[in-house]
């Protein structure tokens, strides 16, 4: 093909004319500027040079660099059409929470941003809840469902039609603690949970958007309370770590948790006292996932006490912890939030004695664990209960009761020749 032939040159010219005409229809300010209130205003451009019409009206600031208003504008995350000033057309397809896992491939996970994290987060246990669902199916004697859906995950429960009691129990009592949850759909404090990436990474108040024109920022420095929003039931490690204990039936205590439960103060974990947050020990691969579909939390965990205190920064998985360094024979850990250097103490002489080789560190050093005895659950098919997955009340009420709860010395058991802590769970 040669452009010298007039027929080709003409067709290219016609195509160009059509293209320019079409562009001027959808994007009327491309060529000049936009008139507002009788004043001519320049077309807002992002630092990349991309025009972003949203910024004609939206003045909200984001107090961080990577997702700053000038860098990404609005539409990179919230979608919509930045090339028009028509209100309706501009807001068509806008999403309130860009990190909702149903659409995240078009937002946070798009090619220029975090595409490598999509598969990791989607297979993460906090997204799949596979371990919890599988355990419930076993406890309820409904293994047949597990055989039919061996990789069952929360996402499946949105459309799975089943009369399973275990699944109904999960949807009503456990269904609000996973990343697949649509943020803001459930009432009260549950509205804070879920929402994909933003469940952990969003810092700031939504109310500031209107009052201070301040958009919440995104941070990789996740503070402990974000984690404890979910990790506060069952083994209650989020409470215990901070030195908080929930009494029987949540009746007494000087601290009130966001859901109204009363907590009593106890001696916190030494790592908490040193100022360490959850992410100081737990790695990115653990909390965000590494792409592997794990069956339970034990498989997914890579960090143990020995990773820092014995192996000087080497995880069980053989990866190196970036925040642990060795200098002149001593091991130090850099706090991810406080950015302080903490001394990592070596195990004492007693830890190495020949009679206690089988003991895990926690068998001796974990002084107490919440223990619920006589926990029983009642299902009343006549009453209704909020299904956290469907976001509406359905038939079948689950009521939890417990006879005794103790914060007491842990019971020990043996796991593959290692002595570990166990608790009713």
């Amino acid at each position, binding site marked *: 093909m040669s452009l010298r032939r007039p027929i080709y040159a003409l067709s290219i010219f016609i195509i160009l004319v059509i293209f320019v005409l079409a562009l001027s229809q959808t994007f009327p300010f491309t060529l000049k500027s936009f008139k507002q209130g009788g004043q001519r205003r320049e077309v807002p451009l992002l630092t990349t040079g991309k025009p972003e019409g949203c910024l004609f009206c939206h003045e909200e600031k984001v107090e961080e660099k990577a997702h700053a208003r000038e860098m990404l504008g609005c539409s990179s995350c919230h979608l919509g059409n930045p090339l028009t000033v028509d209100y309706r057309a501009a807001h068509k397809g806008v999403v309130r929470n860009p990190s909702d896992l149903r659409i995240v491939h078009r937002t946070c996970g798009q090619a220029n941003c975090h595409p490598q994290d999509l598969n990791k987060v989607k297979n993460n246990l906090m997204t799949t809840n596979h371990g919890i669902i599988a355990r419930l199916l076993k406890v309820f004697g409904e293994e047949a469902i597990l055989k039919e859906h061996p990789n069952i995950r929360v996402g499946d429960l949105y459309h799975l039609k089943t009369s399973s009691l275990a699944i109904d129990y999960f949807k009503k009592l456990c269904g609000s603690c996973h990343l697949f949850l649509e943020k803001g759909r459930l009432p009260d404090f549950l509205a804070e949970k879920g929402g994909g990436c933003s469940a952990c990474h969003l810092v700031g108040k939504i109310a500031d958007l209107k009052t201070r024109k301040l958009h919440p920022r995104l941070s990789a420095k996740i503070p402990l309370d974000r984690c404890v929003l979910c990790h506060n039931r069952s083994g209650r490690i989020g409470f215990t770590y901070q030195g908080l204990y929930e009494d029987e039936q949540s009746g007494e205590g000087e601290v009130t948790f966001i859901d109204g439960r009363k907590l009593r103060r106890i001696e916190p974990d030494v790592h908490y006292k040193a100022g360490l947050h959850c992410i100081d020990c737990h790695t990115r691969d653990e909390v965000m996932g590494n792409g592997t579909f794990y069956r339970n939390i034990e498989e997914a965990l890579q960090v143990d006490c020995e990773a820092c205190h014995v192996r000087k920064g080497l995880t069980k998985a053989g990866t190196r912890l970036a925040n642990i360094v060795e200098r002149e024979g001593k091991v130090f850990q850099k706090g991810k939030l406080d950015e302080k250097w903490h001394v990592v103490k070596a195990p004492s002489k007693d830890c190495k004695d020949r*009679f206690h080789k089988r003991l895990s560190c926690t068998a001796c050093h974990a002084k107490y664990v919440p223990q619920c005895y006589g926990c029983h659950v009642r299902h009343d098919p006549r009453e209704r209960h909020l299904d956290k997955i469907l976001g509406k009340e359905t038939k079948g009420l689950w009521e939890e009761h417990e006879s005794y709860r103790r914060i007491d010395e842990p019971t020990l058991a043996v796991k*593959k020749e290692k002595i570990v802590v166990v608790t009713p769970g």
Partner: protein
Amino acid sequence: MARYFESITFAQIEPHSTQRKGRSCKDCHQNPKVVGLGYGEGLDRLTRVGDREGRALVRFNREGLRPFTKEELDRILKVGLCLSCHGERDRIFKNWRSALQCPELKTLP
């Protein structure tokens, strides 16, 4: 029709209550609750994970998790008896042999 089923399960846990100082010898060796035999009072049935013969009385959440065997319990609790007279830093514990015989308590195996 009401249905009822029981499934007491014990789960392995890292309690996140780490303290600088570990447990004392007596905390484990003289404590039936810690070795899985329960409080021995009102809560007894609910707090036992195994019996003195090493048989499991509850379910466990992980494969390979089990209560102490009879032999393991014998070894742990024997030390507990010694701790009633001997201090935790006594040299008999440093040079411990399972065949040690107590001159005061001849019936002790």
